[in-house]
């Protein structure tokens, strides 16, 4: 066991995966010599050589396209998109190719690739360094979509993703890289070294894809969250005193519906939170599922708290970000509705 930031645990995951399986290769923009703009791949080229960790040209479609070809050959590429906001040039390769290859070839060819990308706001990155595009992937059959909320999960999920035989979109909430940010941007963030989930096994372990975890047991309302919003939800619960049960989804696709249904049937109320824009966000799917599967247990409409339906603004970052106050409001609303 060691204390790790989320950057370190992600790096450790790739290190472990590369060490165990020489088919694992890592590449992307600036990930080779320099080790990535967030330093997640630091040292990998030095340890495993330029053959297995290298810089890529700035062409996201090429990065994913080449990774698909490599995977079809038999490797297991784990590639980095420098920011989730820059994944769109690769969208065709992801949606039309990686996601469909197994199906269309009836298993003759497969694309076991992992596509890592820093996601989310909170670093004054403006509209092109803050996006949360998970819902653009959850609509795509054939993909798995993962969003960790802490170093321990990040490592276990990333190893699981690399070892998984299907393509995985791995979204890393960049605001969590160094500590469990709870949305109180004006307060200093506790480092991961002070957090239980910053204690991470140095060796090989996995956190299974498709399994949610309850971060906090509660009786009054279920809060469905992932990534940064797990910590924001914790703050909101603490501040409102409402006894919320916080379910950290971890994997959005495939979803752990059983865990969700069990919790909402118990609490009778549900708030869904994410940072991505509201309309057609993943919260829509969650709300739709909850109302379908828990209709007769629900005592109030499912509330969604999300980013506004605008690009992510620079100056108004904290007005855009769905922080503890907005989650608290939703919790209060959902409790009022009786």
């Amino acid at each position, binding site marked *: 066991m060691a204390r790790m930031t989320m950057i370190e645990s992600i790096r450790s995951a790739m290190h472990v995966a590369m060490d165990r399986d020489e088919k694992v290769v890592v590449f992307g923009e600036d990930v080779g010599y320099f080790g990535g703009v967030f330093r997640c791949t630091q040292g990998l080229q030095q340890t495993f050589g330029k053959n297995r960790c290298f810089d890529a040209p700035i062409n996201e479609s090429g990065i994913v396209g080449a990774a698909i070809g490599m995977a079809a050959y038999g490797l297991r590429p784990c590639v980095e998109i420098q920011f989730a906001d820059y994944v769109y040039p690769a969208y065709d390769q992801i949606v039309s190719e990686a996601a469909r290859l197994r*199906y*269309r070839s*009836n298993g003759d060819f497969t694309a076991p690739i992992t596509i890592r990308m820093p996601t989310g706001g909170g670093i004054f990155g403006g509209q092109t360094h803050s996006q949360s595009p998970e819902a653009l992937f959850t609509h795509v059959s054939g993909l798995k979509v993962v969003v960790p909320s802490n170093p321990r999960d990040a490592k276990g999920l990333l190893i699981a993703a690399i070892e998984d035989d299907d393509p995985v979109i791995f979204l890393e909430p960049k605001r969590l890289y160094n500590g469990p940010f709870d949305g109180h941007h004006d307060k200093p963030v506790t480092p991961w070294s002070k957090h239980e989930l910053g204690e991470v096994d140095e060796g090989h372990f996995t956190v299974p894809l498709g399994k949610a975890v309850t971060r906090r047991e509660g009786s009054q309302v279920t809060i469905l969250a992932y990534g940064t919003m797990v910590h924001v939800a914790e703050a909101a619960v603490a501040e409102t005193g409402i006894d919320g049960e916080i379910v950290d989804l971890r994997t959005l696709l495939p979803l752990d519906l059983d865990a969700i249904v069990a919790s909402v049937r118990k609490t009778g109320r549900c708030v869904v939170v994410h940072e991505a824009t509201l309309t057609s966000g993943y919260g829509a799917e969650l709300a739709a599922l909850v109302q379908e599967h828990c209709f007769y247990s629900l005592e109030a409409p499912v509330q969604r708290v999300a980013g506004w339906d605008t690009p992510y603004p620079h100056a108004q970052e904290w007005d855009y970000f769905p922080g503890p106050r907005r989650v608290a409001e939703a919790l209060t609303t959902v409790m009022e509705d009786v």
Partner: protein
Amino acid sequence: MTTDPAHTSPLSLTVPEPEFRPGDKPDYSTTPIPRAGTVRRPEVDEDPEQFRELAYTIIRVLNRKGEAVGPWAGLVDDEMALTGLKDMMKVRAFDARMLMAQRQGKTSFYMQCLGEEAIACAFEKALRPGDMNFPTYRQQGLLISGGYPIVDMMNQIYSNERDPLNGRQLPIMYSSKEHGFFSISGNLGTQYPQAVGWAMASAISGDTKVAAGWIGDGSTAESDFHAALVFASTYKAPVVLNIVNNQWAISTFQGIAKGGSGTFAARGHGFGIPALRVDGNDYLAVYAVAKWAVERARRNLGPTVVEYVTYRVGGHSTSDDPAAYRPKEESDVWPLGDPIERLKNYLVGRGLWSEDRHTQYKAEVEAEILAAQKEAEEHGTLHAGGKPSVRDMFEGVYKEMPPHLRRQRQRAGV
């Protein structure tokens, strides 16, 4: 900014137009076609800058008299030439049959490669087992000359109960890892960087296998073409990047994709990738160039761009009628001739083949195709007979079926 008041005349937009449209009488008699045998053959390890001109000419082996001439001749022995002819005839017979089957409503869609048979048939012979093609929908010749079972191709086309792809894919979107034939994508260009990635993987693994990417003239305009060339150039991937220039992209003539550039092959130069342009209707030339490019890849010398000059004689697909946008006679007067006729003449000239043998073989291969068709149809056609299971529709989205698909399958009652 300068406020230079000098008068400038109004700008105008250039929109390239093909030489001939329906109603015109197509005439290529003045189109310059290099004579067979006149283009030099560099060593595979020669500095690419030394043979840039090969991207602007046409490498040809078979001359008008049906002789193989020049430095690119002599690579195809008689046995291979005979096989080549038979392969091409089989492809043509297959295409004709399947086109008919589609017209008869036995399937939804078909795409032939009429007039382009030499390219895939000859290229395939330059590869080794284990190498991988990333084909488009017009390289059925790779499968047929590679010995993939005709009946399985038909099963796929019919989406029947024996369809190797379980009815999931559009007709002709074959896949066969065993035969070095990557799953065809309906999306243009996407497979080009994948071919480069596959080749990079071979290099990363210290393997000896090479890859071949395939793309059409129209599709070179796709951005993934660039992605592929950038990656191939940077990592010196062992890949042959084939461009099949059959003059048309559905209704759009090659000039819209090519713009002001001399040739498609020349696109390679901007990346330092050597580029060869070859007569795609000349089996001997195609093989010679393919062999050269494959050897270059295999010897770790990096990628090669090869442009095959050919003509799409048929419609783009069964959904297309080219009479709406080009003169009907254009394919007849197209200056590079028919690949089957040309190789036949060569073999006849060498005393290895005859008109009679040709007629006879044509009948044989048609019978073979017909027999395969009968066999395939016993397992169903798209709208009749054996079908892939509906239950299968939910399989193979992932390696293991996740709960939500299980629920959906249940809901579908299958």
